[in-house]
């Protein structure tokens, strides 16, 4: 019988009157990889923040090795052997690996003997767990995968026995994920305990020995991973059965409606981010654009939707130029021509979160009839339109007068989608349609996109979720460092193949 190294009893935590955690019980065995899975907003991150000492629980107890402990700050949890790797890394970019790791634990005024000792310790750790990090390299020179390893090393150096990883694979390529999993397995083999927070079922099945499922602040299931399967876990997460495979017929590809020719785009810092890109999209197909974040997808999408200036090359909609280096149509004119755009970052770009829902439901179309007549907004028509469309897209709650920031991520995304899809576009540009959206809404959004395709809309899907690109697209292009490095029909393509392209290996 293995004894639990970490035990949570009746943990509750509320923010105002929103209860993020309700009487959570959890015990994690030493030397295992324990998965915690749940939708966005299920309370996983809050729970782990309590374990890491960032928040204090309203009630309940935390014990380590059977001894009750009181965690007031991350410092307390570090002394108790708990380390955490956050979703967003906490590293000083212009410091070296070594400097980052000893930050806050310098021990001496003038670096000397202790620093040498630290170096030796770190080298040993790197060797034991095959981390393969050069301690003297600067963080800004390291890839995302390596930065994550630095975070892991930092926790280990501080004596972590329990390592919590919050959504560790969100920013990694498939190859980097493999490397990470290797490291995590070797950590487990050396007797460390790992808590993996994720919403990806496949990672749970791959890596963990036990899994706990959270839903709406409650712990709804605890089981051994080998005694369950993906479908069962998904059902527990959502509280109902979920379609994991999409019903999708073959595309009925029509004429070419959108063409990008030799497109080059620079970002705000005058760095060329899109390099001589050529693309064409036909009516009735979904073209998937895969790539690791930051390889020019954002700038490409902005240029195609008229937000960003084109450096050279042309963009055609129905054989007429809509944008080149000399002149370009602004987003509103493009919308009138039938080009809709669901932006990558809904809160930064797609919505005015301080606006009421109905104001966002006409955003970008607000000067068109019947919403606006001789510049005066027609609130009666706007409200009845909003109610109709919110019902059709199942936006919850269905209150057009509610301030948009009070809707969940999935419902905010539905507000944008309903707005953009409702105008019957000819071309639809979609960026990260399901980022931060819960499983139930993902299913809905994917189905809508397929319906649009079947209606003959030409769709460009930009996503960093490889699964999404693979399950929705008819053709796939891969972007790396501003270039299109691969074009494939989506038949028998594997995520391995795409992953190698995404990493710029081939």
């Amino acid at each position, binding site marked *: 019988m293995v004894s639990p190294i970490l035990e949570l009893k009746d943990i509750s935590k509320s923010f*105002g009157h929103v209860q993020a955690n309700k009487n959570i019980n959890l015990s994690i065995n030493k030397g295992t990889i324990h998965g915690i899975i749940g939708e966005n907003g299920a309370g996983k991150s809050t729970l782990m923040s309590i374990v890491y000492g960032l928040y204090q629980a309203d009630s309940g107890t935390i014990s380590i090795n059977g001894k009750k402990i009181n965690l007031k700050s991350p410092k307390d949890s570090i002394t108790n052997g708990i380390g955490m790797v956050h979703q967003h890394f906490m590293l000083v970019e212009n410091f070296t690996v070594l400097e980052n790791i000893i930050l806050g634990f310098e021990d001496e005024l003038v670096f000397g003997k202790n620093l040498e000792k630290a170096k030796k310790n770190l080298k040993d750790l790197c060797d034991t767990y095959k981390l393969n990090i050069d301690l003297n390299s600067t963080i800004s020179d390291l890839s995302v995968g390596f930065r994550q390893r630095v975070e892991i090393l930092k926790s280990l150096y501080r004596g972590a026995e329990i390592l919590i990883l919050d959504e560790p694979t969100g920013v990694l390529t498939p190859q980097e994920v493999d490397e990470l999993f290797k490291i995590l397995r070797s950590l487990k083999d050396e007797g460390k305990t790992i808590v993996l927070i994720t919403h990806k079922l496949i990672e749970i099945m791959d890596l963990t020995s036990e899994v706990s499922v959270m839903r709406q602040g409650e712990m709804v299931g605890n089981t051994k991973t080998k005694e369950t399967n993906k479908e069962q876990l998904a059902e527990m997460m959502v509280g109902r059965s979920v379609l994991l495979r999409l019903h999708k017929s073959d595309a009925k590809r029509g004429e070419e409606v959108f063409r990008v020719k030799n497109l080059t785009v620079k970002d705000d810092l005058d760095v060329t981010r899109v390099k001589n890109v050529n693309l064409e999209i036909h009516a009735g197909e979904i073209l998937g654009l895969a790539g690791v974040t930051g390889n020019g997808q954002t700038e490409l999408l902005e240029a195609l939707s008229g937000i960003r200036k084109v450096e050279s090359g042309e963009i055609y909609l129905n054989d007429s130029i809509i944008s080149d280096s000399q002149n370009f149509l602004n987003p509103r004119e493009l919308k009138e021509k039938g080009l809709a755009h669901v932006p990558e970052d809904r809160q930064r*770009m797609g919505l005015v*979160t301080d606006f009421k829902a109905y104001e966002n439901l006409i955003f970008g179309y*607000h000067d068109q009839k019947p919403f606006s007549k001789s510049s005066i*907004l027609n*609130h009666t028509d706007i409200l009845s339109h909003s109610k109709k469309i919110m019902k059709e897209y199942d936006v919850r709650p269905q209150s057009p007068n*509610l*301030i948009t920031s009070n809707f969940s991520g999935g419902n905010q995304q539905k507000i944008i989608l309903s707005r953009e899809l409702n105008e019957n576009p000819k071309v639809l540009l979609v960026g990260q349609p399901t980022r931060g959206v819960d499983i139930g809404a993902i299913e809905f959004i994917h189905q809508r996109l397929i319906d649009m395709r079947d209606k003959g809309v030409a769709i460009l899907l930009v996503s960093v979720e490889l699964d999404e690109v693979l399950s929705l697209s008819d053709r796939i292009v891969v972007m790396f460092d501003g270039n299109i490095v691969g074009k494939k029909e989506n038949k028998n393509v594997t995520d391995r193949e795409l992953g190698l392209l995404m990493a710029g290996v081939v």
Partner: protein
Amino acid sequence: MATLVDKSKVPWWVSNLIVPFVNLTLALIVSGLFIFIAGENPFEAVKLIIYGSFGYIEGFAYTLYYTTNFVFTGLAFAVAFHCRLFNIGGEGQAYIGGLGVFLVAINFSFLPVPIVWLLSIAGAIVFGAAWAFIPAYLQATRGSHVVITTIMFNFIAASLMVFLLVDVIRDTAQMGPHTVAIPEEQFFPNFKDFAALFGMKIRYSPLNISFLLAIVASFFVWFLVWKTRWGYEMRAVGHNTQAAIYAGISPYKNIIIAMCVSGGLAGLLGVNEILGVHHKIVAGFPAGYGFTGIAVALMGRNHPIGIFPAAFLFGILYQGGSEVTFDMPNITRYMFVAVQGLIILFSGALENLFRPQIESFFVNKLNREIKA
């Protein structure tokens, strides 16, 4: 960690009535302490304020006259603020607006009086807007922050007006830095004239029909900001410029529109002061109304429905305060500047001092009631 309150669950009257009321009460308590330290009875002072601003008809008329000015400058600040522009140049825009009123009134005196009035109001708006246009243009094209440029433009306006009043448009028949008076038939009818119509004989007070213009302006601002496409676009740019660009809304255009509307509203202060009160340009006539307008707008939560009572409150303080300084030798005029300062401090800068506690108190109370 401070408790987070779900904003959507806070009843509107808590954030819009109770919180300002608590802040105001605190400001008054601290002010009372000051008056006590100065050697006077704070309760007597309150009595005097109330008597001065409500106790007799002329006093009340004065209160409403001050209210008029604060409504104009408060609305001016609020409109720009909806586009997230901190226009603290109301003072200068009002000053230049006054120049517009005067130039129209003096040069178009051959026209029928009501037309001169309308043209003068237009003059105030155009001149005020023009003075706001320059900082707006610099903000929109160069990113020069309006906080810096508008405050500079207050000084430039003041210097420009002194130059004009000394060297160009001074009434050469006398020595003071002011112009000749506009023709008497163009004077706005004031409260005394109205009272006389009904057979009431009261003493002079500066309250005039500009007060009605303030009501019209409030309605206009409400309509512009919440009922038109322009207001919608201005707010979109103010809340999220990136999103505005995505929706094809030009930040450039909207920054300029918002600032010009703001400047035009501030310019209306010149209508009250010149057509209604002085009947000529007097050096320094905006007298700080432009700055107090910022506090009025903040306290009124940038909504005309809030700005009107906030302006009225400041009207009471101005009028009642002058009553106090008459009767209490230890309280100087500057004391009341300090009181105004405290109100600005508590309802502006420290606006959120007690907001979280008050809001969570009421939210928890409501929750208990729902459970019970």
